[in-house]
């Protein structure tokens, strides 16, 4: 009998470091001895680049476009430490329907029972930005992923995207959809950044899984076409990713988040806007003001 497969989806606003984080989690899980597949769900098709020396791989949809039948081995490529890399792919910008593309690619793998045949421990979906349409919600629907994590910085736009994702999870939570594992707080260097993310998870009744500081090691590794876990395994940053991977491996219970309404979110952001302004002008507003 095959072992228990855990499927995880990682969402987040574009450019927030989602693919970097996902690839490092995959690398860390793999180093820890798990069999991992990373499934990029972004028409840009660059999710798995740093697992494969910075190279692009043929995508499921590109292959499907050329011929009607696609064999799994034609679109699954081994990367760092034997991680299976897959890119869903999608149409050229401005044509067709990328959302439907994600559905097609994920369903193809499901139909062909690829995950079972490859005897995997983890499938990690790296999903493009916001949940803009039904297609991008596929990994959290139809019993595909069990846990969803969202990568967010303290940037308001990233938090808005996370809140949208929470709405998607909330919507599908009653029909067997994936639940939220928590927020992976990325690029957290300033103290206020941590406060903002902490406050957001607090009001939406979720949790921060790990705080990841911005680090030049990540940039250096990516310039070599590698994850930090591969390029600088002993670095402090690699340890952060390994700790994150361990937490995800040990994570069992996800929850339904409570997303903020549009008005609530605006008010919440406005409140933080004022605080940041006060901070810049030297006013003390944190716990220190009581001193």
């Amino acid at each position, binding site marked *: 009998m095959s072992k228990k497969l855990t499927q995880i989806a990682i969402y987040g606003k574009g450019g927030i470091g989602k693919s970097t984080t996902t690839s490092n989690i995959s690398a860390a899980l793999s180093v820890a001895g798990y069999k991992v597949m990373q499934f990029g769900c972004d028409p840009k098709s660059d999710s798995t680049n740093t697992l494969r020396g910075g190279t692009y791989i043929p995508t499921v949809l590109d292959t499907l476009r050329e011929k009607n039948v696609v064999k799994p081995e034609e679109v699954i490529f081994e990367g760092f430490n034997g991680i299976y890399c897959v890119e869903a792919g999608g*149409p*050229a910008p401005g044509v*067709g329907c990328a959302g439907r593309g994600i559905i097609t690619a994920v369903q193809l793998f499901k139909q062909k029972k690829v995950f079972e045949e490859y005897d995997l421990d983890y499938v990690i979906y790296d999903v493009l930005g916001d949940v803009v349409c039904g297609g991008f919600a596929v990994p959290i629907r139809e019993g595909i992923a069990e846990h969803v994590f969202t990568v967010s910085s303290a940037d308001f736009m990233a938090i808005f995207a996370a809140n949208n994702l929470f709405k998607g999870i909330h919507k599908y939570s009653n029909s067997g959809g994936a639940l939220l594992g928590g927020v992976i707080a990325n690029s957290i260097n300033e103290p206020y950044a941590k406060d903002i993310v902490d406050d957001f998870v607090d009001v939406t009744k979720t949790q921060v899984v790990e705080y990841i500081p911005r680090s030049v090691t990540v940039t250096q590794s990516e310039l070599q076409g590698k994850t930090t876990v591969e390029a600088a395994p002993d670095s402090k940053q690699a340890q952060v990713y390994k700790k994150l991977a361990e937490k995800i491996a040990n994570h069992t219970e996800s929850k339904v988040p409570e997303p903020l309404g549009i008005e609530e979110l605006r008010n919440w952001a406005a409140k933080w806007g004022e605080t940041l302004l006060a901070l810049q002008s030297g006013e003390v507003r944190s716990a220190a003001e009581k001193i």
Partner: protein
Amino acid sequence: MSLRSAENTSNKIEKETDSKCLESPKYTCALGGALAVITNIDRFVPIIHAGAGCGTNQMLSFRSGGGNQGIGYINGMITPSSNLSEKEVVFGGEERLAQQIRATIDLMDGDAFMVANGCIAGMIGDDIEAVVRGFTEEEVPVAYVNSSGFAGNTYLGYEETLKSLINQLTKEQDIVKGRVNVFGFVPYQDIFWRGNLSKIGNILRGIGLDVTQVIGDFSGLEGVRRMSSAELTIVVSPWVGLGPAKLLEEKYGIPYLSFPNLPVGPQDTTEFVRLVSKALKLPARRINKYVQQQERQAYYELDIAGDVCAQFSTSLPIAAVADSATAVGVVRFLANEAGFTPTIVVINDDPPEEVRETILSRLNDLRANVKPKVIFEVDNYELNKHLATAYYRVILASSQERFAAQEENQIHLSISYPAFERLVVNDTYAGYGGGIALLEDFMTKFIMPY
């Protein structure tokens, strides 16, 4: 589902429910309207850019519900279609469309080709205009209409197609005195469209006009191009066809007039003739002579039918269920000229809010203070609830109302879409003799119901 009442005129008006789910709606989608127009322009070849099945669906609806009318030149099962599948949904269907247009031009003999898209192409945002632009060097013109099904119903498709034809295939030219365009008859959706257009055309030709009807005659591409040379556009409907009429006014300064119902019988037909004559400043003597001749013949025939009408009932209660132009036209004739009593009128083409007062005003000034209950309703379930509480002996409606009528031993005649149990080619109730034709059709059933 409660009914909202509005007592803003002397008729009792009940507006339709805000039900979100329709039972047996009385029309198809915009693609249907587009195909209804394209397939009835002589030697025009339609190209459907939609999922496989969209075209078949329209054909089945129109063929059966539209008075069992057969196919034209390129129509029905032989209509070319890009048959979009998942591959096109993901990557876009533009290449597939280009391929389909190429193949159609190569294989089919036509004077013009016209692409009509369905929902899929609309949803994924295919740039159909750009694809069609790639065929500008062809010997025959290739046009397109955006007819995504979700955009609206058959009426929208009809208007959008005419507008596309005007925008893409007509150009500024000298106005020809006495030339008129006639809009308002949607093929199949108006089961009598062919006869109606032909009858209205004959009346207009009778008063010396040169008529462009584009559909249902042999004018083809030439007819389409002629639209921009008209002196006037005549819309025989309170609303259907106003879109293209306004476009012709905007683009070429061609004025338009709207006659708010089908002119059935001498009274309304004369009103129609006089309205058109006034707009075109036609010589009064010629018009008076025409009207006198036509009215004499029509009233002579009405007299002949009058005996039997009076013998059975001088105030026969009648229900009508149809689109606004047909329902109002038929009811006005029956009340004003045949002496019957329309008791309920259900208007089922969902006319825009702003024309509803006009429609009501035409039912408000009936003879002998006859005031039928007027209902705007597109849902068949709600519509039948209204009919169940109304009193009538004859119902002029669609096939959907036939069964309720049979149960009550009432006389039923299909005059609106869908009409499954009737073959319609040239039948029409329009014009001076149109009322007689209507009387013949339903009184025959009334005199000898078994």
